[in-house]
């Protein structure tokens, strides 16, 4: 569905995307993970054919976005990071107007609008203007709008950023249904739980490059251990680095943070036993399974990017 080879996007002196290779298969849910400024949105804009690649090869649905942009866009659904719903139009008119941009007849536009409002549970707000809607409702409407042309690929740029847990779960459930229908999903996110929920396969981007690729499970296996032990010490704020030194050799990796020390080990309980054997007395111990977040932080570092 999507094929990119050595894809580069430059804005003046700034290179947002520094040569990435991506392949997305039909029906797949594919994720771009990365901190802010990693080049995710620039990549999405190139895939959605509104921004031309600076160099490299890009094929969407087997076509060239520079030459066949109009044809490709006709088969894409785009849900941008910031809602750009039309504030002058009612909820339903937002959908019917959008349908016209794709060349659908008025009757067909109305039919699909009503169907999609049902799908995203907004039927009772059909006549409302956009402004009074909550963030979650706006996002659902944006997703409904992205589906008005029954797209082959739906592109979602940080679909649940800023939403409350209820809204996120409803959205995930709707996206999961879309996927079950065979729609290819491509999304960016910096929420690890979202990536684990939705993505079959993902790439981690950092500084315009892809630093890792695989399924959520395989990424955890490759870049982290099965379990993580979180240790807090009473005087840890000042001495976590010293504790980390004393913990050396337990598990595969020791990561001292300002407030706690992380021990990466395949057997968490054995690691805890070893800590106690060395006579260290943490004030709290938590053994948990490794998550994508551990992979993410390991790969992209802990420093704030912006």
């Amino acid at each position: 569905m999507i094929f990119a080879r050595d894809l580069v996007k430059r804005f003046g002196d700034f290179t947002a995307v520094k040569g990435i290779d991506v392949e997305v298969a039909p029906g797949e849910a594919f994720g771009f993970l990365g901190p802010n400024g990693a080049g995710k949105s620039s990549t999405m804009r190139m895939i959605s054919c509104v921004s031309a690649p600076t160099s490299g090869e890009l094929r969407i649905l087997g076509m060239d976005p520079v030459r066949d942009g109009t044809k490709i866009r006709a088969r894409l659904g785009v849900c941008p990071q910031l809602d750009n719903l039309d504030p002058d139009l009612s909820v339903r008119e937002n959908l019917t107007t959008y349908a016209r941009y794709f060349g659908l007849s008025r009757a067909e536009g109305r039919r699909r609008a009503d169907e999609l409002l049902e799908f995203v549970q907004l039927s009772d707000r059909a006549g409302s203007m956009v402004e009074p809607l909550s963030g979650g409702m706006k996002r659902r409407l944006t997703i409904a709008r992205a589906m008005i042309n029954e797209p082959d690929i739906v592109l979602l740029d940080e679909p649940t950023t800023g939403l409350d847990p209820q809204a996120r779960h409803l959205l995930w459930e709707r996206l999961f249904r879309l996927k079950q229908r065979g729609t290819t999903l491509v999304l960016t996110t910096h929420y690890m739980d979202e990536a684990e929920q939705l993505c079959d396969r993902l790439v981690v981007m950092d500084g315009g490059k892809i630093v890792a690729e695989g399924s959520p499970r395989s990424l955890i296996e490759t870049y982290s251990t099965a379990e993580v032990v979180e240790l807090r010490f009473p005087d840890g704020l000042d001495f976590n680095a010293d504790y980390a030194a004393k913990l050396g050799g337990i598990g595969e990796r020791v990561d001292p943070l300002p407030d706690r020390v992380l021990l990466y080990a395949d057997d968490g309980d054995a690691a805890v036993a070893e800590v106690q054997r060395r006579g260290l007395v943490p004030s709290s111990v938590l053994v948990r399974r490794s998550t994508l977040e551990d992979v993410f932080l390991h790969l992209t570092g802990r420093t704030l990017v912006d």
Partner: protein
Amino acid sequence: MLTTLAARRSGRITRAGISPARVGAVIGRNVGALRSGPSYWVVLVSGFFEPLLYLLSIGVGVGALVGDLTVGGRTMSYAAFVAPAMLAVSAMSGALAETTFNVFFKIKYAKTYEAVLATPVRPMEIAFGELAWATVRGSLYTGIFLGVMVALGLASVGGALAAFPATVLVSLAFGAVGLAISTLMRGWQDFDLLTTGQFALFLFSGTFSPVHNYPAWMEVLIQVTPLYHAVELVRGLCLGTYELGLVGHAAYLIAMVTAGLWFAARRMERLLCR
């Protein structure tokens, strides 16, 4: 690596031909805004009254003090002199309001066009659609305004019918230039500049007195600016003084349409398809 070459050469997505259906959809969006609620109606209706109020206060009111006027060998009431100018002004302000305030808001704040460009619609189609809509708005104003002029005895029915197509051209010309201007706007403060410029045109373009009343240098300056040509064309047709000069005025306005559209579509592509 055709893609690479093409991307480097043009730096933007090439456009297939203009699709009338997609231009229609861009116009349809504005009709949808009218259907969705009262706010856009308020904007639309309020824009009509300004030139009408000027016609009544200055044309008719001040006109009573001024008396008759002789221009180009023809004598007419002052109101009959001012009315065609106000007609041209209402076309200008209707089209400009649409393509500057509304289009700028859609580019900068509502991000309306970003959503539109994620569909098969191209920047050129947006430019065409918005211009067509602005022209509909301007022509709606002038249509009603001509009705008022005929009712007040300030224009003959024949004159009104002849002038109407000219007012459509005036709307097109100012609408296209307005589109180009709104792609250059940095923020609302720039609208103060635009408003001032528009008001200067409104006062001096042969609207309230014939341009040859001004010093020669000013007359020349005025003849370079756009509203002068719009006023002269519309007035000539209203009063039935057909002369070759009218063709020149029309040509000036057509040039505005072409240059404005070309520039606006290019800028929109650069602003929105980065």
